[in-house]
């Protein structure tokens, strides 16, 4: 009986799903993305957190060449947005309200 319980426990342990890695953090602070360049592997989730007491956005592309792939409004201090990058490439983004704020994420396999 004890053997059976041990066996069941081991089987159960083997079926625990792997822990999801924490998102990689980017802060929006003093009107900057920090860090403003980031290199991650495919499947990584990035989380942006607004540390400024003003509305910012995280908008894909550049002001002159927008990309509809993502666009989040971080309305106030503490607001967050997440995106999982499921393919390799270089992804530029900016704040639509303060277009001098720019960032780049390089996603590798």
């Amino acid at each position, binding site marked *: 009986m004890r053997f059976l319980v041990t066996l069941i426990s081991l089987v159960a342990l083997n079926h625990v799903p792997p822990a999801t890695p924490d998102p990689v953090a980017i802060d929006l*602070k*003093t*009107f*900057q993305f*920090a860090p*403003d360049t980031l290199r991650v592997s495919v499947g990584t989730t990035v989380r942006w957190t607004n*540390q*400024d*007491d*003003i509305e910012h956005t995280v908008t894909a592309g550049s002001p002159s060449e927008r990309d509809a792939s993502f666009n989040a409004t971080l309305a106030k201090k503490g607001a967050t947005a997440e995106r999982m990058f499921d393919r390799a490439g270089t992804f530029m983004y900016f704040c639509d309200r*303060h277009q*001098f*704020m720019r960032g780049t994420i390089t996603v590798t396999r």
Partner: protein
Amino acid sequence: MKRIISSVAVGALLAATTLNAQNMQASHTASTMTVAALKAKLNTLLSEHVYLAAAATGAALGSRQAEFQAAASALDNNSVDVSKAIGMVYGTGAESAFLALWRKHIGFVVDYTTGIAGKDKMKADKAVNDLVQYTHDFGAFLSSANPNLPKSIVADLVKGHVLTLKSVIDAQQMGDQQKTYWALREAAMHMQMIADPLADAIAKQFPGKFAN
């Protein structure tokens, strides 16, 4: 005659700017500066900002293109110096962000000036709205950099700057010289209300960097 006087005034302002830039190169770094020196530096830079902005708007309203370009160039040099002062304390990233933000308000002032010059009320009104919104951005920037600077208080102080400078531009547009220079002095003096609390807040945030 009017043009010559204005040119002499702008020439004097440009000379002052050059001297100021030279002084700044030889001046203190953050680690050796006193609070009084920081206060003096910020007061000089911010009052210079007002005088150069008024020189630029006066030239623009008088359709003196060469003078406008020279004044605008000197004004931008001043903007770079103000940003360097911020960068000296908060780093190059903040310096770049501050410069971009600071230049935005100058662009809105130019919009207001060209709006009233062209009797384009819609353009002038939009510029005023943009400037009011800008005061919140500016307050948020400084409050994010320094928790001793509440956003709403900074925004109100910058709103004072916007309004006092608007009075100068309106007087210039009316051609009222007495009122222009009275308003210009008031606008320049108002900058002390921004420079002094900013210097005090920076010194409070970094007591090891600024000696009393």
